[in-house]
């Protein structure tokens, strides 16, 4: 496995002109067990500022578990997590979210009873500062804040081209649009790190193309760092700057798409060569 970029953390500019900075998030020797099942075995990798980092691997490899560790839904038994250069203590998911890490779920977790607009608005909760007493007493401040948040939400809605469904209850939307609304809610938080668990799973070709474009645009226009899990190899190769490959809880590859594609362990894992 080539270590071309791992040796140097100097900021650089990609071929398509995006800025990649220093390490934003670093996972060190993470091990996660569920009873007897070891979902993640001693994995280390990092995510650099401004990059699109993919996590790939066969079913059950531990990809979602890794994303859940990053977002605080699971706490690993061993290992350390560094965020923005500081060691992060074990945290609850809501605390991680407040650090500016937003996510979507493999199985979509939306507020089905709320409209698209209200769903996306919940993404702004961390930006609503005025407490309830201030809101009750000082109407001006609350209104100004509400306007700001609405504007941010409208921007996301325009960006993801979902104006037509703003008032629709989310429960009634088709699958592809739900995925898009979930992305919108995550974006509304203006995260510094965006985690996407299979954002294109179950979509048709056209929807996949749209979603790919949105992900690239988010990264490009807002400079948002993105870590995503994806099964479609073509998509991964197109989107990501670097790829982590997992299999049976272990990391078997890490590098640029080209490096990973030519890695023998990775080829074996995907061709189903037996493990010993």
């Amino acid at each position, binding site marked *: 496995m080539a270590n071309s970029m791992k040796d140097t953390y100097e900021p650089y500019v990609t071929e398509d002109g995006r800025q990649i900075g220093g390490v934003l998030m670093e996972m060190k020797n993470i091990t996660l067990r569920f009873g007897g099942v070891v979902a993640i075995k001693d994995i280390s990798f990092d995510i650099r500022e401004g990059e699109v980092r993919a996590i790939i691997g066969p079913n059950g490899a531990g990809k979602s578990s890794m994303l859940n560790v990053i977002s605080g*839904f699971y706490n690993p038994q061993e290992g350390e997590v560094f965020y923005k250069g500081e060691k992060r203590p074990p945290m609850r998911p*809501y605390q991680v979210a407040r650090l500016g890490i*937003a996510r979507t779920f493999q199985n979509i977790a939306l*507020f089905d009873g*709320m409209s698209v607009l209200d769903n996306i608005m919940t993404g702004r909760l961390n930006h609503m500062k005025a407490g309830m007493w201030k809101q009750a007493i000082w109407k001006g401040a609350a209104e100004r804040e509400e306007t700001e948040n609405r504007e941010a939400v409208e921007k996301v809605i325009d960006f993801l081209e979902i104006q037509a469904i703003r008032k629709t209850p989310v429960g009634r939307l088709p699958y592809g649009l739900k995925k898009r609304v979930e992305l919108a809610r995550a974006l509304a938080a203006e995260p510094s790190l965006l985690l996407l668990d299979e954002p294109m799973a179950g979509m048709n070709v056209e929807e996949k193309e749209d979603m790919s474009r949105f992900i690239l645009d988010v990264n490009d226009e807002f400079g948002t760092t993105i870590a995503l899990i994806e099964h479609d190899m073509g998509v991964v190769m197109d989107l990501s700057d670097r790829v982590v490959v997992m299999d049976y809880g272990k990391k078997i590859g890490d590098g640029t798409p080209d490096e990973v594609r030519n890695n023998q362990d990775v080829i074996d894992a995907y061709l189903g060569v037996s493990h010993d």
Partner: protein
Amino acid sequence: MPTEFLYGVEVVLNGLMAGVLYALVALGFVLIFKASGIFNYAQGVLALFAALTLVGIMEGQVPFAHLINAIFGTEIHHFGWHVPAVLAILLTAAVMVLLAWCVHNFVFRHLVGQEPIILFMATIGLAYFLEGVGDLMWGSNIKTLDVGLPQGASFWLEENTAFLGGEEFYGFFIDKLDMVATLVAVLLVIALVLFSQYTKQGRAMRAVADDHQAALSVGISLNFIWVLVWSLAGFVALVAGIMWGAKSGVQFSLSLIALKALPVLMLGGFTSIPGAIVGGLIIGVGEKLFEFLIGAPYLGGATENWFAYVLALIFLVFRPQGLFGEKIIERV
């Protein structure tokens, strides 16, 4: 207008007032059930506990006086002061927040993710525990609660409506306390709706009610929200406790109004705030009207004890999702 009809109207008005109280208790149920899936059997006891605490604080009673006296051989019962009603209500509200915090952190926090039946059992335990604590803290004698609300029939209303009927109609007979209770309940519901629609915490509360995982991912602390909903349920219970206590005295039978909330919930649905309100009003009006039209003349009266349950049963058979619930469609 025929006198019979006017008396019927009066019955409906009185039923509405009674329904307000049922609605308040049901509202407390709905708040907790929506946010945490806990069917809170203790909601009625919460109202009792709030009323007991309010009286105790107003009268300057020493909490746990019996216990203290038994252990230390002292004879203290009262601090010797009286606390004004408004201040006492605020203090009681604070006690309800503290209680909410304890209930969540000592009990339900440890039961997150358990089967609904286990949560329900825990609330039964909580109900009896709270009843015992209320007894131990403030004593079990019947207390009068006088927070200065107007009492008695409204003569103004009686005099000014008498002209509607003939010789035998003396005007609508409605208790002033009931009118105030209705007004307060309406204000409370408006405040709750504004809170849940327009404040950060209210939005977070709705989010938690809808999906826990999604709520966590946008940075909402579930524990905070659960303490919040138990506190809100505590406030609603306090209001219900004040109304009921002012009307019939603070006594342990107060916790039984929780049982009247059950048919209300079956009508209104367990997750709908408007459902709780409309359901409460329907039960209130229904049982009074049924007694007036059918119960008293043909069935020997006292139908108010069972009417609500039978109505709920009929609803269960024909519209199990309640008035406002979405139609339940079996997925195959």
